[in-house]
């Protein structure tokens, strides 16, 4: 087993193991911190796929932004002094059947299909992605920026305490 494969398996185990903790942990705050491991693992997988820009973006936005936001959500929807932030589960059997079936189907499809693979040699991607954003994908880029603006203004609007209520 080469060093590359070893590192891949390490990242894969970190990613899937942390995701299992996120889903199965009874304590909400453990789920939130296990999500950190998942995001780091996915960033590692991006790096192994030669997507250096995306790995950095993953760390900046997911770990630095989305995870902090989710932690605020955990803190704000519980009494802080409430020590056991329990998160109940329900429909465990049905959910396990659906998720397990989905995993079997997806894995079978991935393993049995014939993918025509032509690996791209690894190269720095940041400049190329920047060129694509300013050229081919300029319109979706602008639309995404407007979407972000509208979503954030809307989020602030929703949580604002109304004076008359």
């Amino acid at each position, binding site marked *: 087993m080469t060093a590359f494969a070893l590192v891949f398996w390490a990242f894969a185990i970190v990613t899937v193991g942390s995701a299992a903790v996120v889903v199965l942990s009874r304590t909400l705050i453990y789920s939130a911190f296990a999500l950190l491991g*998942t995001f780091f693992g996915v960033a590692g997988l991006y790096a192994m796929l030669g997507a250096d820009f995306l790995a950095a973006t993953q760390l900046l936005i997911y770990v630095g932004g989305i995870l902090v936001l989710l932690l605020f959500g955990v803190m704000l929807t519980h009494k802080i002094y409430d020590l056991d932030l329990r998160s109940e*589960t329900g429909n465990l059997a049905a959910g396990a059947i659906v998720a397990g079936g989905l995993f079997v189907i997806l894995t079978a499809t991935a393993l049995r299909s014939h993918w025509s693979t032509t690996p791209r040699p690894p190269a720095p*991607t940041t400049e190329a992605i920047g060129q694509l954003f300013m050229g081919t994908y300029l319109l979706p880029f602008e639309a995404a920026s407007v979407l972000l603006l509208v979503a954030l203004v809307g989020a602030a609007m929703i*949580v604002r305490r109304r004076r008359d209520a």
Partner: protein
Amino acid sequence: MTIGLQHYLVVSAALFSLGVLGLLTRRNAVNVLMSIELMLNAANVNLVAFSRHAAGNLGGQVFAVFVIVVAAAEVAVGLAIVLTLYRLRRTPNLDQADILKG
């Protein structure tokens, strides 16, 4: 054994299935949002893996960036709704969000 496209696809399938499991079984709204993040990450791993191994261009990575943007917007709006619901009902449990049920 060399690590190829299919290894990434299987990891991504596991991640996505765990997200589905969390989405179906958790009652806490914040936890459901975390599960959705897992599923979006699984889709992103797929996009980047295909971009590296099959497509031969960077389109998949560009699309992954857009997915991250949408995930950020989704979490912001989702948490705003959860907080408003919590203020209204004093519970983050989705089962008790049945105001529209009549």
